């Protein structure tokens, strides 16, 4: 099912297309194995057929097992609720492949990552500067995600070259990585003509911890805790995506009780982050009353989290095979009562914001990200929906959301106001969803089953509050993780920010930045 028909479509684009193998290990994943010669064309064909930017593009070091590197490229097919992976093996001597970046921009960052972490060269890539390993301190030709990497060998160090804008009255303003507020580390290099921004170049990677390497050779269970720490404000979404991958590999089917509970927690995480983001937007325009109000609502949600699960940030809640924190009848009443209060308070907050002329003036038409730009960059999640890209994993991939009549938020204008509106309608929708899920919670059913250990690889995913969180995991029969590729929505969306601020004035940058509200940790891994 599904498999041959997508092959036929590719054949329409490439007449002599012959895949080496077509596998369908899970109902929502198709794996097309191709030879390196047709890899690029196959990816571009899928890009056109599915209207999908590349969702993930990553390498595996299989030299010990099979004497080659493997490259996987994942596309999402919303229409049929499935993921399509194109993979190829490339020889281990002098590894390289034809770069996709020039034909499909969204592959660009992933290719830089492959080059930096594995030393596999994307041939013809226009920009191979480091992303996360800064060559001022990290010697070249040290490829940490190769299996034989142990520790950094000394070698050539070099400086980073920023792209320069030259001309009369153009100034460069470097900001960060140390900032005045308590935010993550990132370097922003503005080229400005007076106040308007001509160019913004981001340099990230300061929070690189080698997370993907840390996953390697870890047991399933130990790794759940690690996935919660990848990006602190999305710890539940990350652990959900990770456990999803493991559950697919081990063939564990989750009790419905756990599925609903996960829905509740995922939405709670979305709610506290969205209200935090709304408060942040108000803070950044100096509108302190609603900002203070939003922080009160956020605190109420965090306290609710703590009462339901014992953890304010929903850590140590999720586990493989289900959830550890069950919601019984008393907790359910606490939950429903809190949601009622939160709804009322939130509507009050929204009223204050919408009725303030000075506030609306600041957010309207500020930091516009056009739909075409967003699509080309592969922008995902909340930011994409604000720019008119109708993509939400909850709508297309999840049974319980379909059952609850999930309505996806959508805006067209792509400015700060649109991103604010998406947050507001998602918060309200989350309240409704939690009520729906809570009504379906079942007193008798267990919230967790024991999984078996199996070898295999699978893609786990969850729609966190920023957007889709992807975990591609490969495990060996002993339950040790061989490779874990993480894609946080921030990774693709940072590029969107660099385009959204163009033409805006410098003092509006913090506002644009806050409306994107991206993660440094999730990007830097």
């Amino acid at each position: 099912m599904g498999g041959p028909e997508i092959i036929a479509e590719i054949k329409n684009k490439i007449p002599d297309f012959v895949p080496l193998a077509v596998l369908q290990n899970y109902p929502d994943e198709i794996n097309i194995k191709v030879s390196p010669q047709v890899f690029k064309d196959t990816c571009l064909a899928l890009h056109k057929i599915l209207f999908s930017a590349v969702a993930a593009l990553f390498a595996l070091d299989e030299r010990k097992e099979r004497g080659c590197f493997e490259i996987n490229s994942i596309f999402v097919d919303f229409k049929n609720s499935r993921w399509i992976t194109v993979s190829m093996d490339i020889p281990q001597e002098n590894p390289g492949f034809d770069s996709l970046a020039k034909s499909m921009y969204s592959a660009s960052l992933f290719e830089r990552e492959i080059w930096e972490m594995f030393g596999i060269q994307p041939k013809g890539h226009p920009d191979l500067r480091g992303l996360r390993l800064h060559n001022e301190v990290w010697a070249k030709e040290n490829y940490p995600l190769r299996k034989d990497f142990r520790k950094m060998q000394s070698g050539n160090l070099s400086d980073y070259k920023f792209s320069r804008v030259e001309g009369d009255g153009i100034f460069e303003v470097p900001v960060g990585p140390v900032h005045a507020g308590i935010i993550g580390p990132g370097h922003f290099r503005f080229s400005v003509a007076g106040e308007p921004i001509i160019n913004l170049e981001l340099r990230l990677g300061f929070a690189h911890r080698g997370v993907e390497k840390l996953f390697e050779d870890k047991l399933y269970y130990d790794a759940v805790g690690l996935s919660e720490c990848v990006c602190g404000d999305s710890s539940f979404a990350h652990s959900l995506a990770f456990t999803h991958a493991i559950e697919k590999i081990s063939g564990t089917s989750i009790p419905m009780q756990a599925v609903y509970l996960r829905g509740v927690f995922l939405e709670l995480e979305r709610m506290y982050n969205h209200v935090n983001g709304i408060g942040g937007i108000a803070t950044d325009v100096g509108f302190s009353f609603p900002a203070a109000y939003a922080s009160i609502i956020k605190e109420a949600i965090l306290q609710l989290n703590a009462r339901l699960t014992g953890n304010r940030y929903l850590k140590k809640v999720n586990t493989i095979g289900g959830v550890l924190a069950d919601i019984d009848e008393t907790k359910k009443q606490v939950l429903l009562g809190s949601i009622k209060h939160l709804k009322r308070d939130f509507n009050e907050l929204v009223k204050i914001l919408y009725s303030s002329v000075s506030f609306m003036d600041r957010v309207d038409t500020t930091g516009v990200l056009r739909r075409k730009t967003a699509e080309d960059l592969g922008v995902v999640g909340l930011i994409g929906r604000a720019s008119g890209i109708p993509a939400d994993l909850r709508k297309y991939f999840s049974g319980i959301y379909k059952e609850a009549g999930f309505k996806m938020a959508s805006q067209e204008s792509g400015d700060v106001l649109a991103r604010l509106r998406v947050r507001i309608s998602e918060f309200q929708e989350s309240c409704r969803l939690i009520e729906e899920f809570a009504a379906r919670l079942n007193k008798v059913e267990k919230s967790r089953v024991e999984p078996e250990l199996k070898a295999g690889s699978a893609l786990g995913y969850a729609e966190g509050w920023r957007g889709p969180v992807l975990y591609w995991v490969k495990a060996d029969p002993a339950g040790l993780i061989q490779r874990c590729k993480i894609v946080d929505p921030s990774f693709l969306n940072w590029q969107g920010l660099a385009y959204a601020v163009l033409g805006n004035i410098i003092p509006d940058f913090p506002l644009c930045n806050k409306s994107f509200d991206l993660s440094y940790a999730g990007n830097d891994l």
Partner: protein
Amino acid sequence: MEIIIIIAQLILFIVIAPLLSGLVSKLKNNIRMRKGQSIFQPYYNLIKLFSKEEVVSETASWIFKAAPFVVFSAMLTAATLIPVFIASPLHRMGDFLALIFIFALGRFFMALAALDTGSSFGGMGASREMFISSLVEPAFCLVVFSIFLQFGSTDISVFGAAHPVSVCSIVAAFALFMITLAETSRIPVDNQETHLELTMVHEAMALEYSGRSLALIELSAHIKQMILFFLIAQLVFPVNFCGFWILWYSARIMVIVIAVALVEVSVAKMRLFRVADFLGFAFVLAMIAVVCAVLGV
């Protein structure tokens, strides 16, 4: 005798000025349903800064070190022009117009010092401050003219005596209130509380300062604010400087403190270039005040 009064007035300004900032901040926090810091926090900050070592950039010239003293002495000079205990103690030295240009002197040196270290934030702050002050000064001048027309003199001591509140004074006071928001770097023009270096105006100019120099700059800002509050108070709640005035003096300043706090929590900061509209409005109000003065209402 006069010298004692001048010294007393200077001490009064130095001692009381930080309290006003503390009060505004406390009020703002209470409105936002927060406990807020103590009203004496600005004093603690000053004491802390005065006892701290100073870090000066290697590229800074003498201007950077001199600027805080220039700014501070400018504000002290301005303070002596204000009628508090008696009609303007140094009124022979300068009039209302002098006040505007004494402020400008301080600002000029702050901007120079901000450029001196070569940091990008200092430059941005200085350019924005100059942009805003170019809009503030014409409006301020017009306010002064309206007072001049009303009292027949730009001498502040005339204005210091009790006088009937006219339409002209009230309109001028509104214009002066808007100017005060801009001059004291408050919302909607600037934001004192922000940590976002890219949006700062006045704070960006002071970013490179530390220790005693920063303390002087902060104290100067407090004194400037107190001077402006006094002027507004004298316009709308005029009082003769003899008699039982301490309570009345404090009460009318409190009214202005409350007004500033309310404005600051109830609107968002404007886009930088929209400040021109805001101060343009202040200019128009000041113009109306002049017209009222000419008409004698």
